């Protein structure tokens, strides 16, 4: 069964450093999403992406964040200058065109020191 994959599974970085989290969505999906979950808290929407542009973003998704689909298979989330409060689990998701069901990846745990 096709699934969403994410790399790395765990990323440790120093405050102020740039990180790129990678996701490979399911191949025929056209909608892509990033969510985050701070430890012990709920899952929060960050951004949705369709047709090579941001479809919707939350107030969390400020200028420090960016997303990109650099090729036909990857979908990346970049955090330019990480802060301590960016430490969280980041989930990528994808969905088929016009279908609300999203398939989630296993997540990348980002730890900012």
């Amino acid at each position, binding site marked *: 069964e096709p699934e969403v994959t994410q790399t790395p599974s765990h990323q440790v970085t120093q405050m102020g450093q740039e990180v790129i989290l990678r996701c490979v969505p399911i191949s025929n999906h056209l909608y892509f999403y990033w969510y985050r979950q701070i430890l012990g808290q*709920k899952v929060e*929407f960050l951004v949705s992406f369709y047709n090579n542009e941001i479809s*919707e973003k939350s107030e969390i998704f400020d200028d420090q964040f960016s997303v990109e689909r650099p090729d036909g298979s990857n979908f990346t989330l970049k955090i330019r200058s990480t802060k301590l409060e960016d430490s969280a689990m980041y989930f990528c998701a994808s969905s088929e065109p016009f279908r*609300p069901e999203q398939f989630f990846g296993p997540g990348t745990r980002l730890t900012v020191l």
Partner: protein
Amino acid sequence: AQSVSQHNHHVILSEAASLELGCNYSYGGTVNLFWYVQYPGQHLQLLLKYFSGDPLVKGIKGFEAEFIKSKFSFNLRKPSVQWSDTAEYFCAVYINTGGFKTIFGAGTRPFVKA
């Protein structure tokens, strides 16, 4: 603003007891509703979903949920829980306001005593 509220953030019950987790959402448009489960250290798994049709939906692991439009609710139920059902349960609503996103509730963590 759109939101999802879950009641009973922590629930303790014994095996074989019935479970009901409350969920209410705040959104006036068409909704697509989900329940996800997250076992410790694992990622989100879809339990069940409601898009349209029969408001009583059945999911995996013996779970079901009922959509009551007039109450903006989508409560999750299981007639007889097992110790292995100890996990975090998230109610979520997918909305389309030109852009697309899923809004999650804060989660409910039932603890099932063996």
